[in-house]
């Protein structure tokens, strides 16, 4: 094998431009595949971290009548817990409401949260105020959509527990920036105590956010959803993304491998005299097959080196500085950070390299097999077989 590697190296170096074209195409595939895998991993990690930090924490204890996908369930999907049951939980009460920015009506989810909570990173401390007006906090996307900014006041209309409409002014005390659209778009956060007062739903919550010390117990009327349960949709989305990008990798790889396959097929035909000479000089046909296979596989090894030289500075930059995306990406309905830091772990890089090297070895071996059936006498004469 060492000899085959030595000879293959010399042959590839001697082949000049033909080698470097194949290596270039394959290196480009390496870079694109690793880039996309790094991008996907980066997005996945960041979205996961941010979803947990901003919304899910260690899980949600959700009122059984509340279904986040059914707005009608908001009206009755709430309840109370005993003080003991509420240990390590922070309540969130969700109500439907409407605001009237610049005279137009906008339906919103009004969310009451404990201003002293620390289970999620929402800057709820900003809601602590002595103002008589209802202090409210909105995300940047919501602020952009409503043209509201910190200090602005806007009319809010809500219904109390009996269904009676009430209205009052809220004051935007904080506009926070987050990549988690589900705590931002169409939502207004106010102190839960204020919401209890406004609705008469004293001590009620739609859901409770658990911290790491919470131990789930069976509570009638409530269902505990673990972090994984809450992230199920996200996992499914990422799985779909992985599958669709896998097909893209395959397409890219196929193009690169086709170039190697083509070169190998041509080599076996064009280099028949050389093959005959190898046999005449004492190589077995199996050794010549091995030589041609190693030659083809070596394209992928060269591509790995070229890809590393070209790709490493790019990947290093993107891993440290990230890629900035325009604002409209945040409206995609999933957590899409404005800046994604690519993640290149050992698994991503090593599996990509392994995949390409093995695939290159296979496409190199297939045409090289023909050599084992060649007649060395005809090969020496360069006659097509």
């Amino acid at each position, binding site marked *: 094998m060492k*000899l085959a590697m*030595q*000879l293959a190296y*010399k*042959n590839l*170096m*001697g*082949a000049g431009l033909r080698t470097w074209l194949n290596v270039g195409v394959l290196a480009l595939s390496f870079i694109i595949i690793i880039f996309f895998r790094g991008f996907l991993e980066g997005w996945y990690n960041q979205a996961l971290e941010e979803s947990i930090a901003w919304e899910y924490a260690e899980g949600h204890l959700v009122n059984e009548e509340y279904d986040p996908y059914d707005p009608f369930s908001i009206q009755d999907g709430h309840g109370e817990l005993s003080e003991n049951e509420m240990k390590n939980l922070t309540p969130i009460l969700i109500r439907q409401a409407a605001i009237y920015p610049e005279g137009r009506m906008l339906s919103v989810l009004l969310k009451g949260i404990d201003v002293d909570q620390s289970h999620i990173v929402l800057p709820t401390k900003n809601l602590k105020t002595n103002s008589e007006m209802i202090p409210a906090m909105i995300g940047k996307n919501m602020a952009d959509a409503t043209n509201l900014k910190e200090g602005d006041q806007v009319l809010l209309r809500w219904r109390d527990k009996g269904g009676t409409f009430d209205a009052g002014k809220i004051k935007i005390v904080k506009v926070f920036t987050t990549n988690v659209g589900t705590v931002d778009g169409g939502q207004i956060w106010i102190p839960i105590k204020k919401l209890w007062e406004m609705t008469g739903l004293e001590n009620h919550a739609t859901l409770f956010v658990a911290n790491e010390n919470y131990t789930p117990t069976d509570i009638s009327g409530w269902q505990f959803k673990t972090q994984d349960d809450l992230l199920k949709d996200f996992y499914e989305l990422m799985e779909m993304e992985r599958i669709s990008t896998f097909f893209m990798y395959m397409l890219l790889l196929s193009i690169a491998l086709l170039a190697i396959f083509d070169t190998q097929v041509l080599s076996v035909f064009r280099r028949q*005299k*050389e093959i*005959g*000479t190898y*046999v*005449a*000089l*004492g*190589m*077995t*046909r*199996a*050794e010549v097959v091995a030589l041609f296979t190693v030659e083809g596989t070596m394209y992928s090894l060269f591509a790995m080196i070229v890809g590393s030289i070209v790709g490493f500075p790019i990947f290093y930059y993107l891993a440290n500085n990230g890629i900035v995306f325009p604002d409209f990406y945040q409206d995609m309905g999933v957590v899409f950070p404005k800046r994604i830091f690519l993640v290149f772990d050992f698994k991503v890089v090593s599996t990509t390299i392994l995949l390409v090297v093995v695939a290159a070895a296979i496409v190199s071996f297939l045409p090289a097999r023909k050599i084992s059936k060649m*007649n*060395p*006498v005809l090969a*020496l004469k360069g006659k097509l077989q």
Partner: protein
Amino acid sequence: MKNGSIISIKNVTKRFPVGEGEFTALKNINLEFQRGEFAGLVGPSGSGKTTLLNIIGSLDSPTEGDALVLGKNISKLSHKESALLRNKHIGFIFQVYNLLPVYTVYENVEFALLLQNIPKAQRQKMVMEALEWVGLASMADKKPDKLSGGEGQRVAIARAMVKKPEIVIADEPSANLDAANTHAILKTMRELNENLGTTFLFSTHDEKVMGYLDRIVHLRDGAVEEDEIIKSKTQS
């Protein structure tokens, strides 16, 4: 110089399939070559010279009969055994040199030694010695495309001789060379034959080559027409 039979061809017939039928390239050939001979197979195109050389070189095997080379029956050798025989004991010189184009002169000559796993220092010594024999030591770093025809064939001779094989098979070695180069390479081969005791077997229809041979086997239509001893080793 050691004496004794090195190649023994007994009742060898070789047929090739041609379309629906067969072409008989060799018909019941019987020949014996002694160690250290400088012999040639002579005859017109299609007389079976190259076919016989290919069988002796274990690149091909007879349809009938036995070809014994260094005591080994070519028909009974596995791919691996015949590769080993070629690698260690037989050197080839081809009409169009068949130098490996991406290798330098040095690497072309070194190739056979690489297959034998000879240590680098020893390889270097052997390659340079072989290049000295053919007068090309100063061109070791050149690629084959920078060589003239005569130089290319001399590299091929060095490549065939570097492993000091018992037998060298030269198939029309002068076909692409002018008279001066033909004489030059024949002189070189003759010297190696005399100094190292290597058996040289040529196929040729070049009279300049014939002038150097000790023995000429005339072939016609796949059969031995005449086996002519020009001069015996003891006379020369």
